[in-house]
């Protein structure tokens, strides 16, 4: 794939189209090795109170700031206001001005609250953040987020942690038709083919955590996802054959041996 095929947004450029998370890993060490295997260049992190009893070692000891771009997320926020404050605190840490904007409405399904999300996006864009909003697969909302200045839109493929893959490729297709910013599928990827399918649809990237972190072998799955995203991207660029009910043989029938 030509070197030039990179993921670009907000003036940044990334060779890898896979964004990975930090949650749910058996331990920091396996997380670190999974990140390595995934080839990802962007890693999302939660914004939390420092743990005062210093038993726990710091997550940041396991993420090489030179290799990885940190993408703080506003997980756990249920209103625009909470998300905005969390984003501002995250930026104060001084390691990133990007934010994976997440405003959850329903604790059960972790579906986003698009109203609040749009509000928060508008505010944070004005505040100079690079905003990557996690939304559902509503093409109308995707457009509104783009118009509000989101650096990319991140529709879910399926509910967070469900592992159901791209439940509605039709909506993703419609979002892609109209989008002028990168479209990154966020949530739902359960196995490699889910990521490949997302990329074959023409998505610019895939963000995942549970699918890797909770696999029996997170490091192997991370490597699988690295290949899966590359495979899907290449297939998209290569231009697949059309689907037919059936076709004809690839062997020219002239030249058949007389037996």
């Amino acid at each position, binding site marked *: 794939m030509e070197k030039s095929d990179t993921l670009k947004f907000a003036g940044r450029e990334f060779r890898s189209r896979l964004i990975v998370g930090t949650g749910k890993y058996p331990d920091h060490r396996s997380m670190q090795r999974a990140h390595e295997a995934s080839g990802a260049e962007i890693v999302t992190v939660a914004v939390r109170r420092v743990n005062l009893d210093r038993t726990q070692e710091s997550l940041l000891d396991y993420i090489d700031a030179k290799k990885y771009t940190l993408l703080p997320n506003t997980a756990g926020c249920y209103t625009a206001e909470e998300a905005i404050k969390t984003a501002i605190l995250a930026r104060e840490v001084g390691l990133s001005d990007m934010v994976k904007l997440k405003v959850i409405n329903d604790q059960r399904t*972790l579906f986003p609250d698009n109203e609040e999300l749009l509000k928060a996006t508008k505010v944070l864009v004005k505040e100079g953040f690079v905003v990557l909003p996690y939304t559902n697969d509503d093409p109308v909302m995707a457009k509104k987020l783009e118009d509000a200045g989101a650096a990319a839109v991140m529709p879910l493929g399926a509910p967070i942690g469900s592992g159901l893959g791209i439940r509605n490729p039709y909506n993703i297709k419609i979002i892609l038709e109209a989008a002028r910013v990168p479209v990154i599928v966020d949530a739902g990827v359960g196995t490699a083919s889910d990521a490949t399918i997302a990329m074959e649809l023409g998505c610019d990237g895939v963000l995942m955590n549970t699918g890797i972190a909770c696999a029996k072998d997170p490091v192997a799955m991370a490597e699988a996802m690295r290949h899966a995203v590359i495979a899907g991207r290449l297939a998209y660029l290569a231009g697949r054959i059309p689907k037919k009910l059936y076709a004809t043989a690839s062997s020219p029938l002239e030249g058949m041996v007389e037996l």
Partner: protein
Amino acid sequence: MVNGKKLEVTDGATITALLEELNINPLRVAVQLNLEIIKRERYDKTTLRAGDKLEIITFMAGGSE
């Protein structure tokens, strides 16, 4: 009150001092004092009083799917 926990802090101690005492790397945290964010350069100018509510924030695992 630091991160919701009662904590003995010598009256008049600076945020810098507190972080040192807690052995927290100031370059990896954000600090909010009584709901107001304190810029890093003001950590050693800012002193703490009884009843102050301090939040020390950092990045931890989680939040992405």
